[in-house]
């Protein structure tokens, strides 16, 4: 046994020593594991204290330790601490192992003898493992200063602007003809009630004019290659049939276009638009888009009205989709959310009964630039409602649809109540499960609306029907609900119902995630690197998430994440290069038979196959170190640093005390 191993057992005050006989463990290691290379075994009150660390550094220097095992708390807490200590003493940090005898022994077991025995086994496993540890050097890769932001909603806009203002180039990709996202569709924003468009459009214009931003609307990402610092992204620019070089955005083509279709996107189906159209007046960029599938010329081969009237001959029926490739160092995914479709809850009557609106439809209804010019009226277009029912949690907090809370519906519904009250003076009923107002001056806004006399009924709406049971219900929408505060069933007749629909991941979130090599949770929201400590990074280095892609949230939180993502990227760009954990897989080409089993196993496309030599190879910078290919290689040709077969197999032997007398391992548990 050529290694010299130092073993350090931590009391952690009484956290460990209270259950585990720490002295015994360290003595045991010193004697029973001597012939495994343990030259020194100490126990200390707080190993993580500077004195504890110095103890280790001293032994490394004086005893020439070649390996270190610390038995203390979870590696997730102090692995770095002890590895850094080793590094200070000139020992490669990866030759140090931290085994957990606190979270996984003293804190979860009560029998002192058994706990001590287990601590010994766990320590023995660490010792056997560390023998096979290899000195590792972190990987460093250069960072390309340009960035890609996907999604032109407020999150993407914020991220793009922060990066661009920081002096770095940004590609902002948006699949709709204009940036702005959902926020551009809103009327007022809670709780301050300032006009959504008024605060958003300046930002949009900034983006449009920013010298550091290449704005790619009506475009989609089709392929992502490479790795952090060095991504190569293929983007498809869909044909607008409008030459943006020539177009002045005068809008004559729109005016002259003879055909109208329902606008399902911006107007949420509440109004019509022309076939060649600018989504909304403040759109950025302000060029029209021709909706080819609906265009008479593309259908029948005649018309071309737009072309005839265009003063700058900007209309180009021969325009084709264009594929471009950009190189970027980092990526922000801010592709937002879809609205829950209330048709999925038939008993609420949406789509079946008149005068039932989704939250988004209502936003348009009360928006000054909307179909009714901001007049809140029934479908007939003239009659204002006398009573309005607002239903919360539609498709949220509901095991049949989405279990989670969509976070914004309460405040949004309260906002709606205020707007209806303000503009119609109608009677308003809000139907809620719980009111959630976790935000600056949210609760105050709720109080204000309560004071305005809005009725709040605590109970989940069972049904919205038009089947009247009494004369006063005739011609009304009747909301059937159990009022849980008074504990009885109620039927409330109203003229208008607003369904505060929940937020859902984009219908294509999974595919998009695959494209960028990041994962969705069971709910479909993208998984952050850490739910608390790192909510904007992902498991894929260099790919960040901002806004509702990570989970439902309101505008302030969304903006904060957009800014945060930008700040993180800026930091990386300044460093110029990035350091990667050296836990990576690699293929021994002599042993690789080119069977190609591994080729499709890597979600990060780190494995490439060389037809010519008929072998596979792993791109270390792309590899995330999960080890799946190592476990799958039938030839045993792939090895993984940090978690090699030798390390794991040795740890198994250690844990089972194969390295010492067998009876021992059984007796201690009996």
């Amino acid at each position, binding site marked *: 046994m050529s290694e010299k191993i130092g073993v350090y057992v931590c009391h952690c005050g009484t956290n460990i020593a209270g259950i585990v006989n720490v002295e015994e463990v360290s003595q045991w290691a010193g004697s029973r594991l001597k012939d495994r290379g343990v030259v020194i075994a100490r126990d200390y009150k707080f190993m993580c204290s500077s004195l504890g660390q110095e103890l280790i550094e001293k032994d490394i220097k004086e005893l020439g330790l070649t390996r270190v095992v610390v038995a203390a708390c979870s590696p997730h807490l102090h692995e770095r601490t002890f590895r850094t200590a080793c590094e200070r003493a000139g020992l490669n940090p990866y030759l140090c192992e931290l085994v957990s005898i606190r979270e996984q022994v003293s804190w979860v077991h009560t029998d002192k003898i058994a706990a001590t025995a287990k601590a010994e086994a766990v320590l023995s496993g660490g010792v056997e493992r560390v023998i096979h540890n290899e000195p590792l050097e972190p990987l460093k890769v250069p960072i390309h200063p340009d960035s890609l932001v996907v999604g032109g909603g407020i999150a993407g806009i914020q991220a793009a602007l922060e990066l661009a203002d920081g002096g770095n180039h940004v590609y902002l990709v948006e699949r709709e003809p204009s940036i702005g996202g959902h926020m551009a569709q809103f009327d007022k924003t809670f709780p301050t009630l300032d006009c959504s468009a008024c605060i958003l459009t300046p930002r949009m214009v900034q983006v449009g004019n920013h010298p550091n931003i290449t704005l790619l609307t009506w475009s989609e990402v089709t392929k992502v290659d490479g790795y952090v610092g060095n991504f190569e992204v293929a983007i498809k620019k869909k044909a607008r049939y409008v030459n943006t070089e020539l177009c002045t955005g005068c809008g004559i083509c729109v005016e002259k276009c003879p055909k109208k279709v329902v606008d399902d996107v911006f107007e949420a189906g509440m109004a019509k638009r022309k076939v060649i159209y600018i989504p909304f007046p403040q759109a950025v960029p302000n060029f029209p888009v021709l909706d080819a599938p609906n265009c008479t010329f593309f259908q029948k081969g005649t018309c071309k009205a737009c072309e005839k009237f265009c003063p700058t001959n900007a209309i180009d029926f021969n325009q084709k989709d264009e594929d471009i490739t950009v190189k970027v160092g980092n990526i922000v995914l801010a592709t937002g959310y879809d609205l829950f479709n209330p048709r999925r809850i038939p008993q609420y009557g949406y789509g079946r009964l008149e005068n039932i609106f989704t939250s988004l439809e209502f936003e348009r209804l009360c928006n000054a630039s909307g179909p009714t010019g901001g007049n809140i009226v029934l479908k007939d277009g003239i009659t204002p409602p006398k009573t309005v029912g607002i239903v919360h949690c539609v498709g949220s907090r509901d095991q049949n649809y989405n279990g989670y809370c969509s976070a914004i519906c309460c405040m949004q519904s309260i906002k709606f109540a205020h707007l209806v009250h303000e503009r119609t003076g109608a009677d308003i009923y809000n139907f809620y499960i719980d009111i959630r107002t976790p935000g600056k001056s949210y609760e105050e806004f709720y109080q204000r609306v309560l004071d305005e006399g809005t009725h709040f009924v605590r109970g989940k709406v069972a049904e919205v029907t038009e089947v009247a049971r009494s004369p006063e219900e005739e011609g009304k929408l009747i909301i059937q609900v159990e009022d849980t505060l008074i504990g009885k069933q109620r039927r409330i007749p109203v003229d208008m119902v607003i369904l505060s629909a929940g937020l859902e991941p984009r219908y294509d979130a999974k595919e998009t995630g695959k494209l960028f090599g990041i994962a969705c949770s069971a709910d479909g929201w993208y998984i952050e690197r850490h739910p608390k400590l790192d909510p904007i990074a992902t498991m894929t280095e260099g790919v960040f998430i901002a806004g509702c892609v990570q989970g439902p949230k309101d505008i302030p939180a969304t903006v904060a994440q957009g800014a945060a993502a930008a700040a993180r990227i800026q930091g990386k760009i300044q460093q110029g290069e990035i350091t990667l954990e050296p836990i990576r897989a690699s293929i021994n080409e002599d042993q690789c038979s080119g*069977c190609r089993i591994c*080729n*499709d196993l890597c979600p990060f496309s780190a494995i490439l196959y060389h037809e010519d030599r008929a072998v596979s190879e792993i791109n270390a910078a792309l590899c995330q170190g999960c080890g799946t290919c190592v476990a799958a290689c*039938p030839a*045993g040709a792939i090895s993984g640093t940090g978690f090699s077969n030798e390390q794991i197999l040795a740890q198994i032997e250690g844990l089972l005390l194969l390295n010492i007398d067998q009876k021992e391992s059984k007796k201690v548990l009996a």
Partner: protein
Amino acid sequence: MSKNEKPKFAMYWADSCGGCDIAVLNIHEKILDVDANFEVVFWPVAMDAKYKDVEAMPDKSILLTLFNGAIHSTEHEHVAHLLRKKSKILVAFGSCACEGCMPALINLSSKKDFFDTVFTTISTVNPENIRPQTSVKVPEGVITLPEMYSVVRTLDQVVPVDYYMPGCPPESHQIAAVIDLVIQVLQGKAELPPPGTVIGAGNSTVCDECPRKRDIKKIKKFDRIQFIEPDPEICLLEQGIFCSGLATRSGCEAKCPSAGSPCIGCYGPAEGVLDYGARLMSAVASVIDSTDPVEINQILDGIPDPAGQIYRFNMAGSLLQACKDAWNRK
């Protein structure tokens, strides 16, 4: 002692089929080189020489012993120890000695189960339900039989082994190459590889030598060779046939897949592999094209005998070696 000074050569079979011996004869005229460079002192299939002659030899007096066959009886173990003692270089020759080969599939059943099956077959007339005994009293005296172990073992589980030469049987061109090497060593023109080396084989896997075209693997269904007309150009696994080539050591020139028949794994695990079957099952399972447990199991139903598939040759050499019953009855 021998009359001439040529180094001594021995070949022995334990629990084996004789195919290894035939493979050696199949080196054709090379056999004459063996005769020219060695004194063949013990080789039951080809010449007369009894144990006593071997026992009479001084220790380490045989230069090279090719030992084929697995260890399944007291007799095998005895000869293994004898030849280890008498040989300078002991080679585990062929799949049986290296990893147990098919005879070790018997490790999947208990000894009782095994004897009961054999002595009650449809054509057996055995009214007193007789089982052979290790010692039987006959009118003239007592005669004995070696005892069968309940678990077949590899040679290196019984005695230390210097080299391993896999294959069922080893391909003749590989044998010829190894014999050339040894002769060169004798003439001081070459050096022996380090002890424990696998000789007469490659260190990649059969796919490396397989002429079939390979693509990425996604398995939706396992098929059986008799039910399809496989495309002769394309990887059999990609056509749903459970081919063991991907996990099996190279060196055979991918004979079976080239002949339209899936590799069955006779060359054993690739360099440094601890458990052959684990490699094979891990690789194949990893590329099953489903994330639904129910569907995964439906797909796995396409392999009705997984243990037989992945441990066809490697049972004795595997980590578990034998089924629980075989272990538990001594």
